[in-house]
């Protein structure tokens, strides 16, 4: 799953770096706040541990072998944020020092394995382990499934990154300039290997390690016990705000989608030959009616959107139009919720006065 240099376009590499950077910043800030002077030695040694685990060639059922990433076990023992940093550092050393994984694709590799892998692994494990005791067999099952899911989701993201390359980056003759396979080939090819073998390696190492730690070092599993999780519960919504801002910035990704969304056609699209062709393609070659349906035509004039197609008339850049629409839309939703909560508070205080 380590993407070498040359598989992804410079634009994709830049986007993945841009997505990974805030995650690294947040992760490092959290780890530093919790560990202070322990940050450097703990992360350094744990990164070295992650690196060594990635070198383990595990025997798998069926007689084959596979490499694990070890991201789930790192997230279970250290928490998702420290695991994110430790696995990223291990990946950097692999890329620079051992040539495993590219340098331009380092952001993508970290996004897939360190960021998505540790978050999915940690959330799945805590969700399935629930309130079970530290020695419960359920925790072994939870870790195994979390490892399997984490690595498969990371693989899916990798396949998506591969699959969009020929869609977006081909030369004038139609030769793909980077990873050559479309999503229809990249996703099944990548997932076949991970659902069968690579996922199993992560399943074995995550489940096996939790079973081992239950017997010999149960204290290392303390971070994910119910009482510890209750203490770690988030006290502020800052991360949610940051996530919302990130999604707003990512909203122009919608521009990459080709064609039109099925069923989201305007009355004028039925008269436009190019739009009719897109409707035909999206409807498995079932020809659309020759004119817009009467009901659609009548109702379409009832309300004219102030920002049609997420493109304000005064804005020349489509991407900024999307971001502005996202900011405006989120602002309206937040305003509506603020008004509702204010009304609710007013009603509650009025009820108290009446009593």
């Amino acid at each position, binding site marked *: 799953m380590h993407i070498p240099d040359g598989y992804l376009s410079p634009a994709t590499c830049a986007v993945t770096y841009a997505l990974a950077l805030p995650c690294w910043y947040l992760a490092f800030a959290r780890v530093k706040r919790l560990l202070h002077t322990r940050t450097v030695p703990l992360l350094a040694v744990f990164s070295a541990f992650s690196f060594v685990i990635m070198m383990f060639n595990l025997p798998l059922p069926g007689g084959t072998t596979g490499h694990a990433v070890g991201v789930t076990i790192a997230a279970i023992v250290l928490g998702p944020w420290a695991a994110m940093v430790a696995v990223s550092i291990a990946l950097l050393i692999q890329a620079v020092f051992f040539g495993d994984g590219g340098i331009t694709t380092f952001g993508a590799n970290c996004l897939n394995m360190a960021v998505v892998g540790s978050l999915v692994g940690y959330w799945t494990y805590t969700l399935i382990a629930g309130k079970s005791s530290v020695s419960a067999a359920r925790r072994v099952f939870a870790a195994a499934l979390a490892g399997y899911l984490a690595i498969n989701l990371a693989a899916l993201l990798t396949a998506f990154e591969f699959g969009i390359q020929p869609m977006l980056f081909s030369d004038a003759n139609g*030769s793909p300039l980077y990873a050559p396979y479309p999503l229809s080939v990249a996703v099944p090819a990548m997932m076949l290997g991970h659902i069968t073998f690579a996922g199993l390696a992560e399943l074995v190492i995550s489940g096996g390690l939790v079973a081992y730690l239950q017997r010999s070092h149960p204290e290392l599993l303390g971070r994910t016990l119910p009482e510890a999780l209750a203490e770690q519960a988030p006290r502020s919504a800052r991360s949610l705000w940051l996530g919302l801002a990130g999604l707003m910035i990512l909203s122009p990704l919608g521009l990459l989608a080709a064609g039109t969304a099925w069923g989201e056609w305007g009355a004028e699209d039925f008269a436009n030959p190019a739009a009719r062709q897109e409707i035909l393609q999206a409807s498995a070659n079932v020809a659309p009616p020759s004119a817009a349906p009467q009901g659609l035509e009548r109702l379409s004039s009832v309300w004219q959107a102030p920002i049609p197609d997420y493109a304000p008339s005064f804005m020349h850049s489509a991407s900024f139009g999307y971001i502005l629409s996202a900011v405006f839309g989120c602002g309206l939703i937040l305003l509506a919720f603020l008004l509702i909560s204010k009304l609710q508070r007013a009603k509650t205080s009025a009820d108290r006065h009446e009593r």
Partner: protein
Amino acid sequence: MSQHFAEKLSRGLLQAMSRAFAAEALSERPGFLQGLDPRIKLIACLALIVSCVLTHSLLMLSGLFVLALLLALASQIPMARLCTQVWLGVLLFTGAIALPALVLVPGEALWQLPLLHGQITRQGLRSAAFLLGRAETSATFAVLLILSTPWPHVLKAMRSLGVPVVLVAILGMTHRYLFVLLHATTQLFEARRSRLVAAMKGAQQRRLAAAAAGVLLSKSLQLSTDVHLAMISRGYRGEIHLLDEFHTRPRDWGILLCALAVPALILWYQR
């Protein structure tokens, strides 16, 4: 079978360590790349790797590969070493991925495959050449950097790119403890192997691997506590200072200018 598994793992770990030690020895040899300021070398290598990814011309990519070969020759880096460490591995991995593209990428047919219904297309051939060429050339530049620069110098050079000092310190320590843990793992498997009297079944091998990983994990955490206490006792309070003794000469600036000109020219040519 079980010996085979433990032996293979030990061999892999030992190979990684010996490669790292050999890289350190090569970086001390006199040579063109070895004589450059590590900061300039790091930026130049990054610029050349970015150039490999930026270019839309196979001719330009071939030129960059030839440049990598010339740099290796001028730096006394053996071709056999590049062949075993980079080219063969990339050829096997990327070659396996690129091969089906010859047929799967639609386009102008060049050659009908005998006994099969598929045909090799011009576009498929070009895209496979791009994938393989980019992967081989950029990996060669990355390995040239490591084979001509001691790791502590690479780390200090990272500071010149604005990498936070704390991250540089973690990377330095990770590199150091990596070998401690690799050594411990090799010993662990050697000890287990020397006590085996019969072949182990698959499930037993998996248990052994999980237990070895568990022992390593607890050793790692213990080691991090020891290192932390050692750092505290030597006055560490969360602030890191690195010594920076590099000197840049006019020749280094010339090399940097040339290296940065490559991606700039590619961008200008492709605009």
